[in-house]
C-alpha cells in the first residue's frame, strides 16, 4: 500500500549488456585507459610539434652547410664555431643581459600592482585583472610597433618634447638601442608577471599577516618576513615566464634594437633567412635552449636556497 505513493518504474532496470570487444571492455573498466585515450590527440600533436622537430633540429645542428645543400656527416663543427667566434657569444650574453634587466624591471614594477589588487581591491577584482592582462592577448607585433611609433626619431616623445619646446633636437638614444628593447619587453610582458604574482599573493591567508602584526611586526617587517617569502613562488614563476621567452625574441630587437640592440634571436632568424645556413641556425637554437635550461636551474637552486634561509 505504501508502494503506491510512488510512480512505478517503467523499465525495470535495463539488463546488463554483454561485454563487447576486449578494447571496449578495457576502456569501460580502466579509468586510466579512458584518460590516456582522451589525452592522446593533444599528446600526439604536441609530440609531432615539439619532440620530433627538436630531434630533427638536433640532427641538423650536427650537419654543415655545403653550397645550397647540407653535408650530412655528423660533426660538432658548428658548436665549435658558436663557442670560438666572439659574435655568437657576445650576442648570447647581450640577450641574457637584456632579458634579465627586462625581467627584473617587469617583476619589480608589477609586484606592487599585483599586491594592490590582491590586498586592496575589494570590489570588481575580476575587472582589474582583466584590465591588466588585456593588452597581453593582443598582437605582440602591433604592441612593439606602437613603441616604435612612440620612441621613434620623429616619434611621439621626441616630437612631443620638441613641440613643447623642451628639447631642440630629437633624443637619439630612444630608438635603436638596448634601452628601447628593454622598455618594450617590460611593457609587453607585464601581464605574464602580474598573473602569477597576483595568484601567489591572493593565496596568502590574511590571518597570517594579522598574526605577524599581532606578534609585533610593523608593515615593513611584516612584508619582508611574511608576505614576500610567501609570494616567492609567484616571483619565481613570473621571472621564468618572462626571462625564457624574451631571450629568444627577435621582433622587438628587429624593430627597435638597431645594431646595438640586436639579440641572438635575430641571428638565428638570419641563419634561416638571408644567410641561409640552417645547420648553424639549428646549432644556435640548441645552444640557446641549453643556456636557458642551465640558467633556469641555477636560478631555481639559488632562490630555493635563499628561501630556505628566510623561512
Amino acid at each position, binding site marked *: 500500500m505504501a508502494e503506491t505513493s510512488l510512480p512505478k518504474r517503467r523499465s525495470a532496470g535495463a539488463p546488463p549488456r554483454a561485454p563487447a570487444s576486449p578494447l571496449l571492455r578495457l576502456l569501460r573498466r580502466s579509468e586510466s585507459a579512458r584518460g590516456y585515450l582522451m589525452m592522446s590527440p593533444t599528446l600526439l600533436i604536441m609530440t609531432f610539434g615539439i619532440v620530433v622537430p627538436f630531434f630533427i*633540429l638536433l640532427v641538423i645542428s650536427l650537419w654543415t652547410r655545403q653550397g645550397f645543400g647540407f653535408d650530412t656527416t655528423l660533426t660538432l663543427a658548428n658548436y665549435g664555431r658558436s663557442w670560438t667566434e666572439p659574435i655568437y657569444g657576445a650576442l648570447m650574453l647581450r640577450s641574457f643581459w637584456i632579458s634579465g634587466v627586462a625581467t627584473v624591471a617587469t617583476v619589480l614594477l608589477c609586484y606592487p600592482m599585483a599586491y594592490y589588487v590582491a590586498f586592496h581591491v575589494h570590489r570588481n577584482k575580476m575587472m582589474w585583472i582583466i584590465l591588466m592582462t588585456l593588452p597581453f592577448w593582443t598582437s605582440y607585433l602591433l*604592441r612593439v610597433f606602437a613603441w616604435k611609433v612612440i620612441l621613434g626619431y620623429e616619434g611621439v616623445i621626441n616630437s612631443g618634447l620638441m613641440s613643447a619646446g623642451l628639447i631642440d633636437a630629437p633624443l637619439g638614444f630612444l630608438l635603436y638601442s638596448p634601452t628601447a628593447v628593454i622598455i618594450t619587453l617590460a611593457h609587453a610582458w607585464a601581464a605574464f608577471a602580474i598573473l602569477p604574482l597576483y595568484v601567489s599573493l591572493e593565496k596568502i591567508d590574511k590571518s597570517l599577516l594579522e598574526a605577524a602584526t599581532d606578534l609585533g611586526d610593523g608593515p615593513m617587517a611584516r612584508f619582508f618576513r611574511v608576505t614576500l617569502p610567501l609570494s616567492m613562488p609567484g616571483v619565481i614563476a613570473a621571472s621564468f615566464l618572462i626571462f625564457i621567452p624574451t631571450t629568444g625574441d627577435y621582433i622587438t630587437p628587429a624593430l627597435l634594437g638597431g645594431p646595438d640592440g640586436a639579440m641572438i634571436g635575430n641571428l638565428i632568424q638570419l641563419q634561416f633567412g638571408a644567410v641561409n645556413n640552417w645547420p648553424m641556425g639549428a646549432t644556435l637554437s640548441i645552444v640557446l635552449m641549453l643556456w636557458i635550461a642551465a640558467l633556469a636551474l641555477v636560478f631555481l637552486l639559488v632562490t630555493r636556497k635563499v628561501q630556505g634561509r628566510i623561512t
Partner: protein
Amino acid sequence: MSSYIKRPNRALQLYAVIFLIVLYVPVLFIPLFSFNDSIYVRFPLQGFTVKWYGELWTREPVWNALWNSVKVGLVVSVISTVLGVMAARSITRTRIRGKGALVTFIMMPLVIPGIIFGVALLVLLSRMGVPLSLYTVGLGHLIICLPFAVATLLPRFEGFDPSIEEASADLGENGWWTFWRVTFPMVMPGIVASLLLTFTISFDEFIMAFFLTGTDPTLPMYIWGQLRFPKEFPSVLAMAALILFVSFALVFVAQWVGRKGLEDQE
C-alpha cells in the same frame, strides 16, 4: 569592511592608476595617429581624417590576408578547444599516472622561445617535403594555442564537483549523454572563453607565421611586409587600430565570460 591589513593605501592606489595608464597609453597612440592627416607619425597632429581607413577598404591584398588569418584562426580555435576539453577532462576526471608530467609537457610552449618552435617546425616540415602553406601556419598556431586552451578549461573542470557527473551516470545516462546534459552546459563559459582566446592568439600570432607561411600571408605577416615602407605607415596604423579594437573586444568578452563563470561556480 576593510580590516587593518586591507585598509586603503593612497600611495599604492596612485601607483595602480599610473600603472594602468602606462600600460594602455602606448597602444592608444596607434588609433590616435590612424586618424591623423599626415603620413608622418609625429606631433603636432595635423587634422582628422578617415582616408587611411578608406584606402584599406580598396586594397585587395589586405582582404586576402584578413581572410587567411580568419580561416586559420577559426580552424585553430575549434580544434584546440575541442582537444583542450578532452585533455582537461582526462586530467581532472581520471586517475592517470604521470599527470603532472603530462600537464608540464602540454604547457611547455608557454616557456620556450617562440623562435625555437618556429625554426624546429620549419626544419621538420622541409625535411618531410611538406610545402609551407596556411596549413603549416595552422599547425604552428595549434601548438601554441593548445596550452592556452587547456589552461583556460582546466579551472572550469577543476571547479565543479565530479559527483555532479557521477550523479548523471547514476541516474542512468551514459558518458555521451552525461557530457551533453551536464558537463557541456557547465563548462560552456570556459569553452566560449577558450574559443575566443585561441582565435585571438592565432589571429595576432606572428613569430610562428614568420617561419611557416608560404605564399599566402596572414594579416600580421602582411603588416610586417608593409613596415619596411615608411609611406605605408598610416595605412598600417589604420589596420593596426582595427585589429587592436577587435582583439580587445574578443579577449575582453572571453575573459569576462570565463572568469564570470568561475566566480558563479564558487
